[in-house]
């Protein structure tokens, strides 16, 4: 009897850290099944849906939210939250614009500058949370406003266009792999890196530990402050990458864009089975969550359902996803 108990418990170990076990993680929530079902449904409902151009446009539109969500996953696993990713991303885009157009820096340097801007925002978030003990919700809410304001101030409230910057647009829209926009490639690359870091490095392990029991982690001799700062900084790097991708896709930095993206990113994370109370979560889940949201919006659009309704549907999906996950967990225990 004891044995069967152990076995059934092992089976319900979807998000225990330390393994990139695809099968186990797909088991997490019904998100993946829903994704497949939605995909099939829309394919039947509209012939155009399965067209490769449509699929690649879904991937393209997932890229920005997806990358933000990847970074947010780390923060949420520590039982934190990051509300500054949306406007932070905008600030990164604007800074990239300043570096590349005003300062005429080389492409690589400008892009790196944009990403570093994100890392800096994350670093400040991390210090505010870990050292000044400001609750993550408040610290990143403040950062959201600060980034939003700075983006407007620095850009003079005007969009910055990259038309004169050779090759910039290709970062998002070029096709290193024919048929697949680079933005999607970046998304998958970042997801792979994220999954590795989460499952196979100290940073990932301590993110889970902090989210499970911060005090115990600290008593175990882990420098919780240091790791929290690093984790928020990492989330900032993802924000920076998203900012560059967004700017490249639009071939411009739009200073008034960005607000609300952070909530969509959080939604993707939550749909993917990561719990807001910390200690549980996965990169695969977040990717599924992000894709699910894009598939849904694209599919509904193809079926000519007005945009207003699309957001209603997404809201309902979040509720269903989290409730289903609760049910599953209750059954598991």
């Amino acid at each position, binding site marked *: 009897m004891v044995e069967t108990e152990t076995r059934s418990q*092992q089976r319900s170990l979807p998000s225990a850290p330390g*393994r990139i076990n695809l099968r186990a993680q797909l088991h997490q929530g019904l998100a993946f099944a829903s994704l497949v079902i939605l995909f099939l449904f829309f394919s039947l409902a509209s012939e155009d849906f399965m067209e490769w151009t449509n699929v690649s446009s879904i991937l393209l539109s997932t890229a920005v939210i997806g990358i933000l969500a990847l970074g947010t996953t780390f923060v949420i696993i520590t039982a934190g939250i990051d509300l500054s990713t949306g406007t932070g991303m905008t600030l990164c885009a604007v800074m990239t614009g300043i570096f590349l157009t005003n300062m005429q820096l080389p492409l690589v340097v400008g892009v790196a500058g944009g990403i570093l801007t994100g890392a800096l925002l994350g670093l400040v978030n991390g210090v505010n949370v870990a050292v000044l003990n400001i609750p993550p919700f408040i610290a990143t809410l403040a950062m959201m406003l600060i980034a939003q304001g700075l983006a407007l101030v620095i850009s003079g409230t005007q969009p910055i266009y990259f038309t004169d910057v050779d090759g910039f647009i290709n970062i998002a829209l070029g096709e290193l792999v024919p048929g697949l926009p680079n933005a999607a490639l970046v998304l998958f690359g970042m997801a792979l890196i994220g999954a590795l870091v989460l499952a*196979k490095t100290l940073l990932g*392990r301590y993110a*889970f530990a902090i989210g499970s029991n911060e005090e115990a982690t600290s008593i175990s001799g882990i420098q919780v402050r240091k790791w929290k700062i690093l984790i928020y900084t990492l989330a900032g790097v993802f924000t920076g990458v998203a900012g560059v991708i967004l700017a490249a896709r639009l071939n411009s930095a739009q200073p008034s864009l960005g607000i609300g993206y952070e909530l969509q990113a959080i939604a993707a994370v939550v749909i993917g089975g990561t719990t807001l109370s*910390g*200690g549980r979560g996965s990169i695969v889940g977040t990717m599924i969550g992000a894709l699910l949201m894009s598939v849904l919006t694209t599919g509904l659009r193809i079926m000519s359902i007005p945009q207003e309704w699309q957001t209603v549907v997404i809201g309902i999906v979040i509720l269903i996803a989290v409730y289903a996950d609760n049910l599953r967990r209750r059954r598991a225990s």
Partner: protein
Amino acid sequence: MVTPPLLRIEHASKRFPGVQALSDVGLELRHGEVLALVGENGAGKSTLMKLLTGIHEMDEGQIYLEGRPVTIDSPRTAQELGISVIHQEFNLMADLTVAQNIYIGREPRGGGFLLRERELNRRARRLFERLGITMDVRQEVGRLSVAKQQMVEIAKALSHDARVLIMDEPTAALNDAEVTALFRLIEGFRTDTTGVIYISHRMEELQRISDRVTVLRDGCYVDTRPTADTGTQEIISLMVGRTLAGQTHSEPRSVNRTEPVLQVEGLSTKALLRYITFDLYQGEILGFAGLMGAGRTELARALVGADPVDGGAVRVHGNQVKVRSPAEAARHGIGHLSEDRKRYGVLLEQDVITNILLPSLPHYSTRGVVRDKAGRARTQQLVRQLDIKTPSLRQPVKNLSGGNQQKIVIAKWLAKDCDIFIFDEPTRGIDVGAREEIYQLLNDLAAQGKSIIMISSELEEVLRMSHRIVVMCAGHITGVLDGTEADQELVMERATRFSA
């Protein structure tokens, strides 16, 4: 030349806002000894331990390790010095696996920064083999039972190659068999180069395991004596600073068993319980004994609707009831006092009055508006009746001792007019003085005609308090013994009926 002691603390003082937790305390741990550290709650044992493990820094005083002065400013430093601790409240990360918990901060890595999970698991498996404990090291800790979590804590502490091992109430969650296993581990750990500081409320354990005993009272050092020459009563009087009256034994064990208050028939759950049948009579204390995993806590949770029931019937005062939630249980007059008081018993941040009135608040309000006066009067009466020691009704419960917290849970159900009380480990984490008070309280409740189910892992407690004893094993009832004729052997024989 005299070799310096393994560990020595001199003149340790520590002040917290409003409390002098320790003043001028000294302590000496010799090589190869088990030193018991005792004192009532608030005597300063935990504070002293936190100084040794770098959770707090001392205001004054000095720690010497092998005669060398050391400064312990963080948990990490303590670990590096070879001081390991098993905390009273588990310090485990519930979402990490057993192996990940044990080696946190010391993860084996390969190729720079990548973790080597397989090596991690291998080490953990070896550790448990060495300790002679069966454990699935890839299991998430949050899914383990309390006793198994305790084992993980112990393994974690022992994995540090510690020289000084500090154990704070390590047996609080263990049954007798597990305690024996733990003592074997301690004996195995004790060598010429190591020492153990053992904090416990259980007097009989000190006699079994410790060489000397150091007593603290109100943050001050009282005395250190060889355990073998010091009687339990003597230790207790050192702790409380007065001589306790001899143990009050249970009231005359006669109950008028005519009207069953609670009748349980064929109760089963999917998980564990199989056809549980028993009656509880008015004014009776019905003890539940059994080993870990016997299903006693599960039974309590099923009875109050905290866990789903698969089959069977429950009658309260002869009426068949279906209890689907603790709220319904309370409506039928059943109050539950969980083994995990801090999690399920009280709202730690809230004050005394809020806690006591929580279940009966609707009774003290009119159309949703609370009538403070009536509630306050009732609370005051209960605080007096149960002799709850609190400076005021507005005192946050977290500032009260374990014994008083337990009383608050009792008061809460009394305010709700409950007449059936299910106590799960009523004296866990409660010090000796308060323990007697809780026993007295249980007897008083029974004398007033309340009916009590008392689940306890301490056999002595069950034998002493119960009118009848129900013994469980592996989800079954394996015996109902009369309190007057039951003894340890008889209960243990029933409790191990099915064990392999």
